[in-house]
């Protein structure tokens, strides 16, 4: 059996998983896939997080991609990172850069097992801040400067490709090169608040084609997290596994311990269980009905007769779901245009249920969260700590 087929039928433990530690965030990015902003009072405690790490160590999950929200605003964030690496679970964390001070950058550079990924969605402040909020470009660039000055080589600069920044790929690469970092490009998904802006932000067909050619030209030098496998339908596959790993080789643990098939699918439809349940995460991974279903042979539905189906495998499950398309049909950004034609027939789209967006919109907000979790959801005023 080919390796990719093995992966389609699932592994005993994920290869890597995404773990969002908090819904709290100092930014309010318009395309936030987890609709983050305010902390959820039910978020896993330090002790519960450490128990998850213990389990990941037993399952030999080599590393976790920690995100949020903005994970570094959790007061126990560095403690949890140290705990994970002490227990042979490597960490790559995604951040907007807010807490990457010169001192913190030096400490990160001194260790081996932690990788840092700075989010940047425009090669210029104008393009970036329109999506990520005023001041966010400066925050990200300052973090990169601090990491580079501390000698942290090869950290990641992570870009969600949009219609507005698709023409800046060379500029992004120049920024990454300037700081000795590696560029990572990922796909915009209509998940979370991304659903609200997908129509205006997702790349045009011509931009997708140019992106594909650019990625082929740059090969393994640019990372994609296997994000653009739907573009394999143009012909040659891009580097990576080229398969949807949801529930098969990847999954998401959200801040309250809910386990979803993938980070872009925060919706009841893709909820497999919770790490607080009996048997913890391992039981969810190994015995949830949803995951068993995802690991069974999938049908291509309307796509089966398409000559490109073997390359693109019907594209991204989350992109289809949140644009209201059937899961066994074409991706909304199908390079053959099949998805686009179908989109005009959709009248109702599902939405991610958990919404922790700031009620006061746009622009960074000073988020600090105390060690003590609020007792009930209603105890946490969205304006707490804002001083107004």
């Amino acid at each position, binding site marked *: *059996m080919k*390796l990719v087929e*093995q992966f389609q039928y699932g*592994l*005993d*433990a994920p*290869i890597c998983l995404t773990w969002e530690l908090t819904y709290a965030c100092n930014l309010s990015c318009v395309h936030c896939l987890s609709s983050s902003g305010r902390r959820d009072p039910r978020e896993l405690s330090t002790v519960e997080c450490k128990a998850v790490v213990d389990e990941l160590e037993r399952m*030999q999950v*080599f*590393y976790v991609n920690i995100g949020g929200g903005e994970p570094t605003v959790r007061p126990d964030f560095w403690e949890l990172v140290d705990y994970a690496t002490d227990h*042979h679970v*490597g960490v*790559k964390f995604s951040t907007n850069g807010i807490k990457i001070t010169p001192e913190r950058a030096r400490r990160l550079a001194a260790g*081996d*097992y932690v*990788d840092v990924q700075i989010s940047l969605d425009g090669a210029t402040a104008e393009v970036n801040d329109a999506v990520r909020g005023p001041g966010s470009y400066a925050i990200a660039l300052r973090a990169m400067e601090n990491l580079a000055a501390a000698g942290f080589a090869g950290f990641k600069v992570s870009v969600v490709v949009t219609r507005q920044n698709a023409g800046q790929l060379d500029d992004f690469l120049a920024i990454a090169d300037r700081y000795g970092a590696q560029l990572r490009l990922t796909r915009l998904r209509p998940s979370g608040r991304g659903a609200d802006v997908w129509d205006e932000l997702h790349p045009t067909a011509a931009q997708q084609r140019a992106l594909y050619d650019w990625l082929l030209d740059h090969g393994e030098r640019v990372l994609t997290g296997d994000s653009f496998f739907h573009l394999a339908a143009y012909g040659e596959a891009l580097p990576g596994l080229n398969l949807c790993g949801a529930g098969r080789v990847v999954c998401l643990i959200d801040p309250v311990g809910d386990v979803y098939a993938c980070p872009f699918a925060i919706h009841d439809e893709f909820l497999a269980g919770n790490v607080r349940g009996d048997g913890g995460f391992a039981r969810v991974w190994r015995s949830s009905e949803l995951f068993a279903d995802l690991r069974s042979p999938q049908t291509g539905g309307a796509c089966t007769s398409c000559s490109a189906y073997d390359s693109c495998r019907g594209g991204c499950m989350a992109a289809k779901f949140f644009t209201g398309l059937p899961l066994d049909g074409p991706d909304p950004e199908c390079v053959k245009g099949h998805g686009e034609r179908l989109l005009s027939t959709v009248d109702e789209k599902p939405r991610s249920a958990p919404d922790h967006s700031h009620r006061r919109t746009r622009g960074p907000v000073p988020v600090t969260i105390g060690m003590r979790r609020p007792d009930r959801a209603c105890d946490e005023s969205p304006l707490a700590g804002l001083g107004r």
Partner: protein
Amino acid sequence: MSTEDTFDLDTAWGLTAQVSVRPERFGALLYHFGTRRLSFLKSPVLLEVLTGLAGAPTARDACTRAGVAAAELPAYRTALASLAASDMIRERS
């Protein structure tokens, strides 16, 4: 750095200290915490060769102990060379 042409089957090799091995039905997953690279071992026999490296005087010996036939040796040499090139295994001194 070792390439296919220079990989020496007759010296002692071992798994790099920063590499973790996770056995799987198809073979194993290897992860290097230093380079943050993931590799796949596509056969259980290759996994046996790899785990036997540390206790064998030479890579050739580790292959023999894992049951690799002489005719298969070039293929295993190629696989070991690529693991050496990505720093998953290192020559022991």
